[in-house]
Every structure is written in C-alpha cells, then in structure tokens.
C-alpha cells in the first residue's frame, strides 16, 4: 500500500508555546554570539591548556546523531525493510538538521567565523594530510547528499532514493569515522590516540542516533495523536541493544590497549582523575550498563517505557562519552620533552563551565529544535493518521493541508 505523509496543522496553543520558547532560546544564540565575538573566547571555559570545550563536545555529539539517524533511515530505502518506512523521512530530516547544528557549533567555536572560508580556499589542493581538510570535504558532500536524498524521498522517486541513500549511508559512515580520526590520530594526546577511535565513534553514533530516533518518534507521534506501532519501537530497541554490545567491546578494547602499556598514566587519569565521573557514571553507567540492563531484562525490553528509558539513558551517556573524551583528553598535560618540558605547567587542568558558552550551546540546540518543529508544519514528514490517507494524498496541494 502506498503510504501517505502529511504536514501538521500547527495551530494549537501547545504548538505556538513550543515555537515561542524555542524562538526565545534561539535568541540566546544571537546574544551569546555577540558577547563572545566582542569580548573574545575568554568568556568561554577554553584556555591554552584545554582548547576544546562545550562547543566541540556538542559538535561531535551532533555529528554522531546525524550519522546515526541517516544510517537508521537506510533500513527502509536501502535495505527495503518497509516496516521502518514511517520513520524514514523523520530520520533523514533530523540528520540534515543535526548536521546543520554541528556546523553551527564548529563555526562559532572558530572564534572568528568569517575566516571559515580559508579551509575551503584551495579545497582538495589544501594540505590533504590534515584531518580537518579531509573532514571539511566530507561534511560539504554529506550535507548535499542528505538534502538531495530527502528531496528524492519527498518526490517519491524510490529508485533514485535507494541509490542516493546508499551513497549517503556510506558517506555518513565516512563522515563520522573521519570525525573520530580527528581525535584518534592526535599522537600527543594519549587519551585520544587510538586506531579504534573512528570505529568507536561510529558505534557511539549508531547507538545515540537510534536512541534519538526512538525518542523523537515517540514524542512526535504522541503529541500529534498518531498511533505508535509498538513493534517498531521494540524492534529499534532490540537493534539498540546489539549496537550497545558493539560499543562496549570497542570501548573495552580501546581502554585495555591503553592500559596494557607502561605509559598508562593518561588512561589512569581518565579512570580516576578529575573527570572519573564522566567516564564511569556517564559513558559506562548511562551509556552502556543501564540501557543494556533495561534492554535485556525480559520485562522491560518488551515495554515502550523500558525502551524509551534505555534510549534516554543512551542519549545522556553518549553525550557523557563525548565529554569524557574531549575534557580529560585535553586536560591531561602533554609530554613535549619528557622530564624537561611537560605540557602546560605539567599538571592536569579543570574545565570551567561558563555562562556564555553554555548559552551558546543552548541557543544552537534551541534553533535546531525550532527548525524541526517548524519543519513538521511545512514539510510532509509524518505519516498520515489512520483515516487521513486520502486527505494526505491531496496534501501535495499546499491549499489542502491535513490536520495534525
């Protein structure tokens, strides 16, 4: 059966309230940006010792969510599992928005964003041994592919959508592994340095992306009065549990490899230093153990509540994982000339959480959420409710909008 998709009416009080709140949140981005630009990066928590802060944590988190969402979207168009079709448009749309958000984070983090074009000045004639240059090419092509993929889905060009979708999924994998390689190939930062890092990034992207799709599907379907197919959510929950196993193995191998060598001080710092709680409570506790318990327990794995709690836990845990990489990884001093010059003053640093950096992050998250909510109103993303199919087929006419 041809599935139809509709826009939501978006005239309820709750909808307007949500748009207003997110709009106000987006204003924070403008205010935060002006203050940061005029005063300089001193208003953030970053320093010579910890050069990457909240914005970079959000940046890698959003890239992961985007890649995860796109890979999940491939289940229907690329692998032809029609069972997942109701969430495909949602997943691709979110993939685009999250990537846009990630670019906002890195753009603002530059400090002087007007200089961003220099990365693209010579494009592939740049220094192609730099992971930043390679990733800039990945990101531009990835954004273009995603927009094209969504357009093909909207236009119901299935054959082309399958081809472009396949390409997009391969590219999404490259994008996130490339982002992992930015960290994994920094030899002088022992907590980052690992050949497994790109794969670990990919596994974390898949777990957080799947969790986000589960939570967004539940949220949007519930608030727009659509039937939530329990089997679909439980199936995604089952997929999530396998992805968490993969992530667990990769994290274990990565940390044990670092732990094996005599120069294990950095990983000991990660386990028991200033940021032990980021690693143990968030990355391991909320990112792996709690969701695994919920998803393998015979009672909770069969309930939507159990799966949604597990997804929420993964979302928070993977964010903690990103923070547990960036903050301890940069806080631990580098050994420039061991015994003579030991990093910046030779001691680990603490990253302060500052108001303006936090407001900037909140502003960008609000802006992306605002675009998502407005997208539901102006684009045919959600599947039609039962009995709405005919209205939805007419929904391609902008004058005939089905109610949502």
């Amino acid at each position, binding site marked *: 059966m041809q599935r139809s998709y509709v826009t939501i009416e978006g005239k309820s009080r709750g909808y307007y309230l949500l748009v207003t709140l997110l709009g106000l949140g987006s204003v924070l981005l*403008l205010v935060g940006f002006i203050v940061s630009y005029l005063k300089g990066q001193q208003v953030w928590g970053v320093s010579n010792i910890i050069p990457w802060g909240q914005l970079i944590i959000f940046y890698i988190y959003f890239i992961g969510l985007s890649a995860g969402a796109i890979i999940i979207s491939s289940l229907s168009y690329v692998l032809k599992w029609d069972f997942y079709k109701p969430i495909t448009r949602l997943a691709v749309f979110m993939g685009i928005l999250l990537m846009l958000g990630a670019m906002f984070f890195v753009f603002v983090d530059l400090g002087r964003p007007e200089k961003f074009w220099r990365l693209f000045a010579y494009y592939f004639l740049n220094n192609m041994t730099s992971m930043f240059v390679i990733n800039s090419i990945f990101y531009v092509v990835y954004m273009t592919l995603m927009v094209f993929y969504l357009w093909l889905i909207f236009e119901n060009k299935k054959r082309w959508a399958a081809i472009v979708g396949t390409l997009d999924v391969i590219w999404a994998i490259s994008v996130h592994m490339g982002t992992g390689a930015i960290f994994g190939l920094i030899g002088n930062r022992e907590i980052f340095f690992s050949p497994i890092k790109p794969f670990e990034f990919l596994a974390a992207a898949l777990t957080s992306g799947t969790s986000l799709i589960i939570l967004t599907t539940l949220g949007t379907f519930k608030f727009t009065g659509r039937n939530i197919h329990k089997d679909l959510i439980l199936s995604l929950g089952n997929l999530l549990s396998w992805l968490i196993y993969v992530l667990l193995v990769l994290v274990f191998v990565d940390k044990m490899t670092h732990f094996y060598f005599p120069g294990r001080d950095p990983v000991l710092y990660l386990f028991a230093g200033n940021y032990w709680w980021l690693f143990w409570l968030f990355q391991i506790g909320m990112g792996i153990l709690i969701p695994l318990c919920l998803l393998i327990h015979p009672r909770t794995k069969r309930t939507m509540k159990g799966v949604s709690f597990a997804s929420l836990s993964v979302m928070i845990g993977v964010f903690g994982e990103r923070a547990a990489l960036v903050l301890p990884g940069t806080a631990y001093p580098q050994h420039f000339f061991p015994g003579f010059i030991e990093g910046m003053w030779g001691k680990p640093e603490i990253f302060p959480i500052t108001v303006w950096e936090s407001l900037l992050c909140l502003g960008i998250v609000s802006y992306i959420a605002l675009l998502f909510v407005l997208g539901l109103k102006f684009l045919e993303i959600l599947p039609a409710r039962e009995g709405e199919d005919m209205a939805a087929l007419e929904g391609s006419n902008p004058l005939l909008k089905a109610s949502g």
Partner: protein
Amino acid sequence: MAEPDHCFICYFAIGLLQVVNALVSEELKMSLRVVAIAIEVIILMAMIYCFFLGLKLTLSDLGLQPRYDRFLKLVLTTLGIFILTFFIAHLILFYPGIIP
C-alpha cells in the same frame, strides 16, 4: 627613499580633517561611526538578500516545487538573522573611526 608627492588637494583634505577633528566632540564622532556601521549593515544585508533570492530562484529553476517554498524561506530568513548579527558584531569590533 623619496617622500611621496602630495598634491594641494591632499594637504587641503588632511588639514580639513584636522580642523573637523578639533571641532567635533567625541559623542558626535561616536554617533557618526554608528550611522556608518548602520549604512554598511544595510548595504551588506541587501547583498545577502539578493544572494538568497538568487539561490531560491535557482532552486525553483532546477525544479523545486512551490510546496517547499515556505520552509526554505523560513530557513533562509533565520540564517539571514544570524548573518545580520555577525555583521553587527564584526563591524562594532573592527569598523574604523570616521574621523581620525
């Protein structure tokens, strides 16, 4: 190295600026700078508007249906607001004084 030759008009202009500088108060100088920044922001935003309109028309020419127009307009409007904020911040920080 030889001194560059200045014509009479150059000397006259420099002298005139020095006279104006002595006469004009700091507040007026600041106000002039604000006006100049506002004019430059308007010109830059007009250019950005033309660029975005061109982008929208190009997409229409390439076959993008009118049903996507509202969302596209919305995204471009919000991006325009961010660009406007950037121009204001950038010019406040780097715009030179009108009168030396």
